[in-house]
């Protein structure tokens, strides 16, 4: 069983080579290699509601696939045929739950808020992990077409929905809005916004008005920088990972020499392994943990 799985995976990963060979044979057009073309989003199913563009693009397709897979994985691991003496599948599910609880939720959230916000941060971690992971599996979801045995099929490509800034910015905006809503709900409007001021400041008198205002503006700026750093961290990590892999594989085509293949495939695989084994999980964990910390610090300000 294990051997069959390994063989199937290897054959599937070899498919891009087949596609590559068929384009070389066909010798259709000489295009300049440009990795950034992978991030052009064309409307696959145009949906326009007035000024709002809801078209289904590559990123949307990957997001839909990611959400579906997240639901299926969680249902399969944590909801399906639960027993009192867990088998291996259920153990994996319980391990995921425990990591989400001890490593993510309890790191940032105060005890009274875990019941309300644990589902949010846990699903955030799982969703980002799955979407990142799907981004490293070659899938026939791309704009490039390839002809195999006379049938035109979409070429296999790697693309992560999280390497689009709008996706990560939306996720970061969720956390941003929840943070301030929870802060106001728990501390009152005045209490929450007054808690942004660092502790131990002098009283607001005429003499201190300008420095204190500047300090407060800096804190407000800091709140918005959280939004930027949260979204750009995930976006740029995934973008740079895909860009590195594509660039190293594409070096063969830029320099037009097949002798580079061992070098570029080796380094491409190395970066692929680094991204899949480390970056994907770290980024999902970081995004969820920081969301928990931000929400937790708004619920219980330190001073």
């Amino acid at each position, binding site marked *: 069983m294990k051997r069959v799985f390994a063989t199937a995976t290897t054959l599937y990963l070899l498919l891009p080579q087949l596609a590559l060979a068929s384009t070389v044979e066909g010798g259709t057009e000489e295009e300049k290699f440009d990795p950034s073309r992978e991030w052009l989003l064309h409307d696959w199913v145009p949906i326009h509601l007035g000024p709002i563009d809801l078209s289904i693009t590559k990123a949307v397709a990957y997001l839909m696939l990611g959400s579906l897979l997240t639901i299926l994985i969680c249902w399969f691991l944590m909801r399906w045929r639960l027993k009192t003496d867990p088998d291996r599948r259920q153990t994996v599910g319980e391990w995921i739950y425990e990591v989400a609880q001890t*490593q993510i939720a309890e*790191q940032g959230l105060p005890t009274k808020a875990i019941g309300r916000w644990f589902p949010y941060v846990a699903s955030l971690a799982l969703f980002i992990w799955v979407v990142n992971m799907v981004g490293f599996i070659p899938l026939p979801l791309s704009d490039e077409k390839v002809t195999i045995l006379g049938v035109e099929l979409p070429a296999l490509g790697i693309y992560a929905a999280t390497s689009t800034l709008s996706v990560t910015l939306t996720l970061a905006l969720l956390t941003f809005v929840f943070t301030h809503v929870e802060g106001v709900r728990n501390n009152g409007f005045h209490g929450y916004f007054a808690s942004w001021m660092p502790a131990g400041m002098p009283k607001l008198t005429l003499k201190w008005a300008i420095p204190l205002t500047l300090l407060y503006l800096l804190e407000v700026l800091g709140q918005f920088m959280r939004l930027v*750093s949260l979204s*750009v*961290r995930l976006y*740029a*990590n995934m973008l*740079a990972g895909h860009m590195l892999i594509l660039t190293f594989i594409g070096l063969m085509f830029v320099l037009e020499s097949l002798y580079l293949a061992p070098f570029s495939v080796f380094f491409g695989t190395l970066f692929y392994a680094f991204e899949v084994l480390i970056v994907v999980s*770290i*980024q999902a*964990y*970081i995004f969820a*943990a*920081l969301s928990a910390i931000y929400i937790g610090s708004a619920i219980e300000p330190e001073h």
Partner: protein
Amino acid sequence: MNLAAIVFAAAADGADAGKAIALALGIGLGALGAGVGIGNIFGSMIQAVARQPELRGELTGIQWLGFALTEAVVFYGLIGGLLAFVLV
């Protein structure tokens, strides 16, 4: 080729050269700082575990949090460079 020739060659293609320098400096300087920072984090982690091995479990989470926060600095540089490359 003397220095003047290089300068004039660069000036003829000045816009693109400036963009390339912006991109390279953005990534390079960002990577410089982040490299020092990541080395610091893992060095401190090794020291901490060497002194108190029983704390390894608790420290691992903090270590990866610090790693990801520091590593992101490279990408702010990268995004800044890309912005300079694309927009200007």
